[in-house]
């Protein structure tokens, strides 16, 4: 097991942190771990239903009993992937029979089945391949204090699995449309075969969600315990340290000292800023950025000082500082994405103000136009909606007088003195309804034209009569109107034809009341 290839940080973690690392590992290799899981678990799930045909309640219990075997393929993937060597499909298939049938599979399913720290002891059995007394001793060495955490892990995993089962059922229930009359407890009903199958599927989903995480968390508990006991973090650190220190020996050490020295030299730069750069040293024109950046200024002053110093080592330092790699002063005046490593500077020509102004002017104009349009639309809308508009339309209609009449048709015959005769002719021709309509319409037109009665198009016959009673002082005319209205109402709404004598008198009387006005509009 080459520790250098491990793909996880080997800090010393507390037990809970160790389980968290397991979660991260599953997330990292989710695809291959779940592929390994379903390769075994899904066929087993179906097989158990075939075997237990008719007794499907048995399947989940057998599934639960066989869990220790189901745990093994994910652990196999995890253990190889962690050390930088994720197995490919062929390797996995070759290893699978051994995983499922050997490595104390029988013990795992019988007297060790109820081991509450199963996830933690599995790596010892499967990865270290220990058995019997050696295994027991090994577990004793490893156990404290990780075994406690492993037991808690089992407890939490069990509860999470059950909680997820219920969550899944509730989710299905929530997403069921209303027209399917389904109660939540219908979904928990295992009395029918299909209900049992549904619950088994839910249980399998919950199991599949939790179990790989459970296995990984147990594995990382085991790893963490070994990392504590065997100081894996120290080993890795020492290896790195040796690799760093080894290659060039003393030379490397010397370079490191030089680097340290440079680092120390950089520290007093702050003080130089306080001293204010001496004016006697004109800035070398080559360093352009120094004019913009106080840090570069400090650096430049420092370089010049070093170059003018007497001692040779300081001059050597000044030379070194001029190397391009050490030229750390860089002024960037544009935004760039964090991941963007391109260093070419964008075109720096000063922006032309005119396009901007044009743009601003255009936008302003458009805004004003929009405001004007808005006001116009709002005004039109208000004008359309106010009652004033109606009244004006009514006034216009009222001014046309006779056009405003009761009934469906407008007056087709001008209400002149001959209207009474016309009506009587219609009556004698067997059209009493038309005759009375003509009389009534003519009367209304006459009332509007001669007496200025504001008859509305919405008024009923009784409205007109009331209006007339209120406004006219001629009892004779009112009596006539009353009789006419009753007769008209009788024929119009009740289909009762008035007596011929009444009709005759109405026709004869009409001109007396209205025809006096030859001024009736034609």
């Amino acid at each position: 097991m080459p520790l250098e290839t491990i793909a996880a940080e080997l800090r010393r973690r507390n037990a809970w942190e160790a389980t968290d690392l397991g979660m991260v590992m599953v997330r990292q290799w989710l695809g291959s771990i779940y592929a390994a899981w379903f390769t075994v678990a899904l066929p087993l799930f179906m097989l158990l239903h075939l075997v237990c045909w008719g007794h499907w309640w048995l399947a989940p219990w057998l599934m639960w009993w066989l869990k220790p075997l189901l745990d093994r393929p994910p652990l196999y993937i995890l253990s190889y992937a962690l050390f930088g060597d994720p197995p490919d499909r062929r390797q996995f298939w070759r290893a699978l029979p051994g995983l499922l049938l050997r490595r104390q599979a029988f013990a795992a399913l019988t007297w060790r089945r109820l081991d509450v720290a199963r996830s933690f002891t599995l790596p010892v059995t499967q990865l270290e391949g220990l058995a019997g007394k050696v295994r027991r001793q090994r577990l004793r060495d490893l156990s404290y204090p990780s075994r406690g955490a492993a037991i808690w892990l089992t407890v939490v995993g069990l509860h999470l699995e059950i909680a997820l089962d219920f969550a899944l059922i509730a989710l299905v229930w929530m997403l069921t449309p209303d027209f399917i009359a389904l109660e939540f407890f219908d979904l928990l009903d295992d009395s029918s075969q299909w209900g049992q199958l549904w619950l088994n599927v839910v249980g399998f989903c919950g199991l599949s969600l939790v179990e790989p995480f459970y296995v990984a968390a147990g594995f990382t508990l085991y790893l963490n315990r070994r990392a504590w006991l065997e100081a894996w973090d120290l080993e890795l650190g020492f290896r790195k340290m040796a690799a760093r220190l080894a290659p060039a020996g003393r030379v490397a050490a010397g370079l490191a000292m030089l680097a340290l020295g440079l680092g120390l030299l950089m520290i007093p730069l702050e003080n130089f800023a306080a001293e204010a750069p001496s004016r006697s040293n004109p800035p070398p024109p080559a360093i352009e950025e120094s004019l913009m950046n106080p840090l570069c200024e400090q650096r430049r002053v420092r370089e010049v000082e070093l170059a003018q110093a007497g001692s040779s080592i300081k001059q050597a330092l000044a030379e070194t500082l001029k190397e391009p790699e050490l030229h750390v002063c860089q002024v960037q005046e544009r935004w760039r994405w964090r991941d963007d490593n391109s260093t070419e500077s964008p075109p720096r020509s000063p922006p032309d103000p005119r396009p901007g102004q044009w743009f601003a002017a255009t936008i302003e104009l458009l805004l004003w136009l929009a405001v004007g349009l808005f006001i116009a639309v709002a005004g039109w809308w208000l004008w359309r909606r106010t009652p004033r508009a109606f009244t004006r339309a009514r006034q216009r209609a009222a001014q046309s007088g006779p056009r405003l009449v009761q009934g469906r048709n407008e007056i087709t015959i001008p209400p002149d003195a001959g209207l009474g005769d016309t009506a009587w002719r219609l009556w004698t021709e067997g059209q009493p309804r038309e005759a009375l309509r003509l009389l009534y319409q003519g009367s209304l037109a006459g009332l509007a034209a001669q007496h200025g009665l504001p008859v509305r198009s919405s008024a009923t016959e009784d409205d007109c009569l009331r209006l007339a009673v209120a406004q006219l002082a001629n009892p004779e005319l009112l009596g006539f109107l009353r009789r006419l209205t009753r007769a008209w109402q009788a024929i119009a709404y009740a289909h009762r034809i008035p007596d011929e004598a009444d009709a005759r008198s109405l026709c004869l009387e009409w001109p007396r009341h209205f025809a006096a006005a030859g001024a009736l509009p034609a």
Partner: protein
Amino acid sequence: MSTRSPTPVFLDTLRHVETPEGIELSLRVAGPVARVLAWSMDSLIRYGALWVLLMVLAMLGEGGMGLWLIALFLTEWFYPALFEVYAGGATPGKKALGLKVIHANGTPVDWPGALIRNLLRAVDFLPLLYGFGLVAMLCNRNFQRLGDLAAGTMVIYRDPAAAMPQLPPGRALPPPFPLNTAEQQLLIDFAERSTTLNPERQAELADLLARQTGLYGVAGVERLCAHARWLAGEPT
């Protein structure tokens, strides 16, 4: 099974936060197992207290029941937020498990953050028994549930108070090679923990640096411990 990752991965449960002063903090984010246990403990405490309260208030008749219902409402919604704001980011359960709540940028959690993350428990609880919360936690890099995501908070492990290193007694020697901070820490760690390792493992580890120290076995271990003592500030 067939994915050979082209770039080496390096898994950890740390979240690095850089403070405005340019100091990088490493926060150890806490995952589901510890948080489920902390939640269970809080629930026990809460409902235990409510049960005792119920015994007392039941003697007051209907008015007492009204008071109890108010207490139930308050504890249900404000118990975690109250502790998270005023007790260093940890409810009693979290404290017992060594957890605390902070903002994702490393600052202590405040009222808005604590309220949002706790009121949104109702969402995490959906569809039943924290189904969404658990799935969100497993999917998220920082183990944040939905309430945490909305409030911009996360749950981390509290760092234990740093203790002075307890090194085995002996002489101190300056290391003959320059060491960076991590390496100095590593040597001190080695000296500190050498007592918990068996001698063979100690020698095995010390031999990894034999080319640098020029010593093998027990002598190498002793030499590394001497360097560690010097680094820890003991006089030569």
